[in-house]
């Protein structure tokens, strides 16, 4: 079992007898520090999607499906193609990658985990940390060296991450893919 707060894009949960792939999660705080998790889920059997909300501590059955370590190979609209160590190729629908899609870039070397349901590749989980180059961000404001001020930055692949004020264009940064949070400059 996993709490809603622990679920990440790529996880598969069982609800009302059907497996659902988590495509997107967004956690916010309600009153008294309670978390609210908004999710986009895709029903693996019916191919339908739904937007839903859970309490952060709601427990759900996290299904352990067959998983294979793969690397990203290429994009053939609308499928992302991944390859295992034995050069077998697996197609995953772009929709199923959800937020993780923003981190998939040509030439990426990080190992991903492709999840299968009844022989079909249905989702991809990224490594917990991933390194990407900042392609655009505003210059730092003068005088602020505290490192606490944050600003948006565009990274390779087109995604946006909130980074520390000192980060510059061309810097490589480490990102936590579970939370989309900037961790450090590398």
């Amino acid at each position: 079992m996993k709490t809603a707060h622990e679920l990440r894009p790529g996880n598969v949960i069982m609800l009302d007898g059907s497996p659902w792939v988590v495509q997107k999660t967004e956690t916010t705080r309600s009153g008294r520090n309670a978390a609210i998790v908004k999710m986009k889920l895709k029903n693996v059997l019916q191919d339908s999607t739904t937007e839903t909300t859970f309490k952060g501590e709601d427990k759900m059955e996290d299904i352990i499906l067959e998983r294979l370590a793969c690397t990203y190979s290429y994009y053939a609209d609308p499928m992302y193609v991944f390859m295992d160590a034995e050069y077998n190729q697996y197609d995953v629908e772009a929709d199923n990658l959800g937020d993780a899609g923003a981190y998939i870039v040509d030439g990426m070397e990080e190992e991903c985990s492709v999840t299968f349901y009844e022989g079909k590749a249905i989702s991809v989980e990224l490594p917990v940390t991933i390194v990407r180059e900042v392609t655009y961000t505003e210059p730092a404001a003068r005088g602020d060296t505290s490192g606490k001020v944050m600003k948006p930055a565009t990274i390779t692949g087109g995604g946006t991450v909130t980074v520390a004020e000192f980060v510059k264009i061309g810097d490589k940064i480490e990102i936590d893919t579970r939370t989309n949070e900037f961790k450090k400059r590398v």
Partner: protein
Amino acid sequence: MASETPTISSFHSPHWDIFCVVVDNYGDIGVTWRLAKQLAAEYQIDINLWVDDLNSFSHILPELDKSVAQQRFHDVNIFKWNQPLDISYDPGALLIEAFACELPSQVISLIGALHQKHKAKESIIKPPVWLNLEYLSAEDWVDGCHGLPSMQASGIKKHFYFPGFTSKSGGLICESTLFKLRDEWQSNTNNKVALFKKLGLTGITAKDFVISVFSYETTALTALCKHWIQCNSITNKTSPVSKRIHALFPMGKSLSSILDLLNVPLQAIKPGQQFCLGNLVIHILPMTDQTQFDRLLWSCDFNIVRGEDSFLRAQWAAKPFIWHIYPQEDDYHLVKLQAFVNIYSLKLENDVANTWSKTNFAFNQQDSNVVEHWQQLISAQSTLEQHAKHWPIDAKKDADLASRLVEFVKTS
């Protein structure tokens, strides 16, 4: 009437159930009690309000008998909610878990079973619409989450209902006649003087400046009281007006912030007591019901309020106020405060909006600069009052929470 195993009735009663766990004294029960009363009075809905703590509830409903498990006031059935549930739960048309409280396991399994039976055979009654009534917030994300279903493991859907300030949210609790009653009350100064007298607060004249204080503990309040003691005038934009300041404190957390000024132990303080300190008179308020509390807010020149229920009632009072928001981890409450400040200030002059924002943040951050901001704020009292009069109409928009809720249930 006790029943160990609740059973599914053969008929579908149209009543609504609201479950409330009292966490702090008057916030959760304050909101659910107002909602229950309004639904019963304005929509003639048979409401069952299940409350786990009748003792706290009795402070805002003095007629309540703490020893009785089932009773009825204002056309609302009030049930004492014991764990495990010892009063039979009969599924109605709506089931509300207030503020994400954990429903009794018997209730969850009963509606889960009802859902499965209805799924198998449509002629079997549907389970109630299940809502989690959430906390009020002005944050942007509320619109995107309001009304969304939350599929439970059993397949039954629970909906998240978010009160809020926009048309896409669940709206704000506001009785249909509230603004009319408030305007009538405020049109006659004798009403406020009579109310203060009724509450045992003596020596307040119609010309005095009266501030109600219902906050959590904060050194900002201590700093403000020290300032009020020395302050011999309330300044408006044109001239200083000599006014005595009366601060009305209930027994509780606000009072803890100023005990050193009173030089009296908390146990020795009684409602009705007053302390004259320079230009400031501190009055100790008796506990009042919600109707009297509303009138109190209508009658003061400035209100300091906390939490959710009194925060909203201060807005409906059409008087300037400071909101002491419930503190959260990592100061997340300041994000919520900023979201509210942003929408409340939209139609305020920039300099007044800025000062109002700074005063609220200073109060919430225990910042002694609150005095400086307060002085600027109070010089704009007339502008703030004008804004406070218009704000409730902007905030309520076209519909209040109860009417939106009734519509939501109809279409769910």
